[in-house]
């Protein structure tokens, strides 16, 4: 394993992210914070939603924000760099094995997803207070869950980014990302689906369900949620599955 090359590639991604910092900031934080403001502040303030909805909403928004950031951070550059400009070629020719080049992308995406989650939570809290009751119960569980959520988003980005062409980006959002968010137990807990027996079990194929439920379990455990062990097991399973698919697809794209 060539750690120097790996580190240099991470440094390159960090450099590019720094260069696009302002764009990245708005891209990452504007939508979740507007969501928090409208649903948590306006809807609750006007009485359409009960006050405790604030505490239920924020962990779900953090899960969406992390997922979206990780997928975007990995998939978009890969789609662009594997297009006809083949910009990624200079890294494919670096003295490091191909899988590690893909893993570097995953690590870069994971770090961005973590930053996004760890910034959205306090900013959302500022918007929603007073009356929001969230807190980190068990730091170890919280750490494990946000790491697994970040890894899920970055591995998902790798799998999607290496399976799609530029002309399919719109389709990726309407066919994959949007249903994933709405059926991801993000704006409501899984227990709210009790009256929809088929949907209730069908949504369990959606990894975002475990991400939202996991965030809720560690930040607002007073709401009913999936067992933490199930959440961690399912997230670990999806992380590995998406990583495996992503590495295979990456190789297919990289070598003709």
């Amino acid at each position, binding site marked *: 394993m060539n750690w120097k*090359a790996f580190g240099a590639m991470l440094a390159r991604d960090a450099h590019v992210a720094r260069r696009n910092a302002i764009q990245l900031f708005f891209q990452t934080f504007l939508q979740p914070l507007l969501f928090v403001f409208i649903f948590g502040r306006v809807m609750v303030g006007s009485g359409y939603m009960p006050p405790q909805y604030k505490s239920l909403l924020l962990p779900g928004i953090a899960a969406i924000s992390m997922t979206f950031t990780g997928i975007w951070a990995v998939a978009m550059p890969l789609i662009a760099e594997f297009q006809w400009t083949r*910009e990624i070629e200079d890294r*494919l020719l670096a003295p490091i094995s191909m899988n590690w080049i893909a893993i570097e992308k995953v690590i870069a995406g994971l770090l961005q997803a973590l930053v996004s989650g760890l910034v959205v939570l306090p900013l959302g809290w500022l918007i929603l207070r007073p009356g929001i009751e969230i807190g980190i119960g068990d730091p170890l569980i919280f750490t494990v869950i946000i790491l697994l959520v970040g890894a899920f988003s970055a591995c998902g980005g790798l799998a999607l980014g290496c399976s799609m062409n530029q002309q399919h980006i719109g389709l990726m959002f309407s066919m994959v990302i949007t249903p994933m968010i709405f059926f991801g137990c993000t704006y409501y807990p899984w227990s709210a689906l009790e009256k929809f027996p088929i949907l209730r079990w069908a949504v369990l194929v959606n990894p975002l369900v475990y991400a939202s439920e996991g965030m809720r379990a560690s930040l607002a455990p007073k709401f009913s949620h999936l067992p933490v062990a199930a959440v961690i097991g399912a997230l670990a399973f999806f992380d590995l599955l998406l990583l495996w698919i992503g590495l295979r697809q990456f190789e297919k794209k990289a070598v003709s």
Partner: protein
Amino acid sequence: MGVGVRTQDLHKVFNSPPPMAAGGIVMRADAKGAKAPKPQIEAVDGISLEIRAGEIFGLLGPNGAGKSTTIGVLTTRVRPTSGQAWIGEHDVWQEQAAVKRLIGVVPQRPNLDFSLTAREILIFHGAYFGLGSKQRNERADALLDKFKLTERANQMTRGFSGGMMQRLSIARAMMHDPQVLFLDEPSAGLDPQTRILLWEIIREYHQSGKTVLLTTHNMEEADTLCERLAIVDHGHVIALGSPKELKATIPGGFLLRLRFGNQTADLLERLKSLSGVREVKAADGTGADIYADRGGSLIPEIASMAASSGAELSDVHISEPSLENLFLHHTGRSLRD
């Protein structure tokens, strides 16, 4: 100590059009029953080469001959269908990281990292190869200067002209001082001045004991730059040797391309009897390609012979021994076709 390059019976069949190679590759459709045939493209069909350490070696051939695919296999970018390739002692497919450390690659189409400036492209490339910070900066500055890019060093490369991108690609490939430099059509799209600069740089690089493998369909480039050449067509090597040796294999050396208003079969037979004529080939219906020991002095005899057989000579083109003639002799086609 230089590093050589070797391939043994290399084959590559694409099931879909290769992403980088140019068009014009032979399509072979193996239709079976009612099933839609899956097009198979045989880009490389049994290429065995031995490129010596410290040599400038050229692959010469028309578009779609399999040159880029061969380079692709040698640089880990294309998985061979069968056969093996080595850079020095390292098997290209088995020991990719070790191979990539030894090689520098200039692609046919610039693939610069558009998120970085010209200077950053070189600096990060150096970092991927483990160069220290001081060394990276020094080398990047020296290369920017050498390729006349210093003024644009801190600009993003998206707005660069084709020639500038090409120069930067070459600088990047040299950044980690590779033992073997691959250049795929290095002078395509360069103006004559830059082309000469490039040739000088390649020669200078070669003088430091490095191996250079380039592909080209430019005869002049192959002739002036390469110590040895393989002429490639349809995935095969059809001739191999130094430019001088290869040119010496053209019968006679001179090529006279003749066109007649109308032509009779016995005219071709009679042309063979002229003194100095080594070989006569019919071409394009009403033409003939004559390989001969002499050029212009044959024309009066040909003209009078044509007139006496009722054929009218309408066009004559005489060329001296060249690689172009060699390619034509082997394939019946011009390299530019």
